[in-house]
């Protein structure tokens, strides 16, 4: 694998993701409408129900809409990460996956390229969402958009790697609804995306508090939240990067022909 070959392959795979995304215009719209609905309708409704006290990284009283913005950023990444896994399963059913896996490149690189391509696309969606939020008057502090970029990227990689890992085990497209129920919803709701975790503790929901605290999605959201306010959260960074790496490595093992977890029926 020469660097130019690697770059060409990465470019081709990213290009294909972008073209597919643009062709399915509904995906872009739903990728934006989903978090915007939360921002406009739900967050506005909860504005007066949830008062956010001053907790790090916030240094002053924070409107709920502003609090929920990193969480909704995470939502965009989470949905897109899962959608990438859906496209892996689709490619497998349609046979495109064979074409990818028989390219003269190491398999880990092909999976990494697929992950990078998906992540670049999801970062672009996040910024489209943030731009829409800005126009609606909900935003990060100036400079926060740039500071949040690495955090958004790392979080996108972690959630994309999770999607990649799930695609090893999801046999058919129909099982995607199950993924929604058992992965996306619990990860999103049992996290710090919608409310600070101390609120759970206050409500004596101790078990859920701990679940949310160990949820990698919480850490992805906190990583983005802290970064947007110019702070680095080392624990969240470690958990997000560590989980991302672990998910990716397990996915690579899953796609390894020696172990053949991609069963014959899946068509590999």
């Amino acid at each position, binding site marked *: *694998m*020469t660097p*130019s*070959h690697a770059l*060409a*392959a990465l*470019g*081709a*795979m990213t*290009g*294909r993701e972008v*073209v*597919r995304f643009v*062709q399915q215009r509904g995906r872009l719209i739903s990728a934006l409408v989903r978090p915007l609905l939360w921002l406009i309708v739900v967050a506005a409704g909860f504005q007066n129900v949830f008062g956010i006290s001053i907790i790090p990284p916030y240094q002053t009283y924070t409107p709920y809409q502003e609090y929920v913005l990193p969480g909704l950023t995470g939502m965009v990444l989470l949905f897109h990460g899962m959608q990438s896994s859906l496209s892996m399963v689709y490619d497998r059913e*349609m*046979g*495109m996956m*064979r*074409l*990818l*896996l*028989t*390219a*003269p*490149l*190491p*398999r880990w690189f092909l999976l990494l390229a697929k992950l990078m391509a998906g992540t670049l696309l999801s970062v672009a969606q996040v910024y489209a969402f943030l731009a829409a939020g800005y126009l609606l008057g909900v935003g990060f502090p100036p400079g926060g958009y740039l500071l949040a970029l690495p955090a958004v990227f790392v979080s996108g990689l972690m959630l994309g790697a999770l999607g990649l890992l799930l695609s090893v085990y999801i046999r058919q497209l129909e099982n995607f609804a199950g993924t929604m129920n058992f992965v996306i919803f619990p990860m999103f709701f049992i996290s710090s995306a919608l409310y600070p975790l101390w609120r759970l503790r206050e409500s004596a929901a101790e078990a859920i508090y701990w679940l949310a605290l160990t949820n990698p999605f919480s850490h992805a959201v906190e990583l983005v939240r802290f970064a947007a306010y110019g702070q680095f959260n080392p624990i969240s960074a470690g958990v997000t990067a560590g989980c991302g790496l672990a998910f990716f490595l397990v996915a690579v093992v899953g796609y390894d*022909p*020696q172990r*053949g977890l991609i069963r*014959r029926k899946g*068509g*590999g």
Partner: protein
Amino acid sequence: MTGERNGGDRDPVLDVRDVSKSYGAIRALDGVSLRVDNGEMVALLGPNGAGKTTLFQLLSGLFVADAGSILIEGHDIRHNAVPALAAIGIVFQQPTLDLDMTIAGNLRFHARLHGLGRRLARQRIDEELARVGLTERRADAARQLSGGNRRRIELARALLPRPRLLLMDEPTVGLDPASRADLLDHILRLRADRHLGVLWATHLVDEAERADRVVILDRGRVLRSGTPAALVEGSATATLSDAFLRLTATGATPA
């Protein structure tokens, strides 16, 4: 076993030795050996379920054999997958075009995946499209093509990186007789023009009859191999079709 070659400057481009593969209790391949030389078309003839697709999955590195070795241009696919894969072009049994992309887009994607530079990719795409007579359709979505033309594009795509070995897994499934004959003619010309080794899996005897050599696979084992004429002679039948039916119906033992 691999005899009846014409001699000359031929080297094996594919060398399969004693390969076995099981799925649970099912022994899909049992000690399969075969070889394909440069410029030679070998038909892998077997009824459905003989293990043809399993063998192709091993040849293309999607799975790894339990035992035995597979050498492609001297590279072991198990330990040295990247150079081995670089030497092969594959037309899968299942259609593998991205139907939403244009024809040129599908070809470009493949060329980049195989590390061809932009200019070289453009040049080869033009050449291959011209060869299959679909130049004027390059901007059409793959979805708009007929089954026969989709197969031609898949063949053109497989040839872009200039492979030494072409693997075709029942490529004529679902094609009408004219497209079938057309594809086979095309492959026979290619293997002569480009010194390309071709392994063509099929369950259709009339396709196998036109190959340089035939390997008969049944229940995961190679029953016979040789030129079509030698197979007919050796089985004391009148045609290859009779020979094939007799061998696979009686569950003959490997020769």
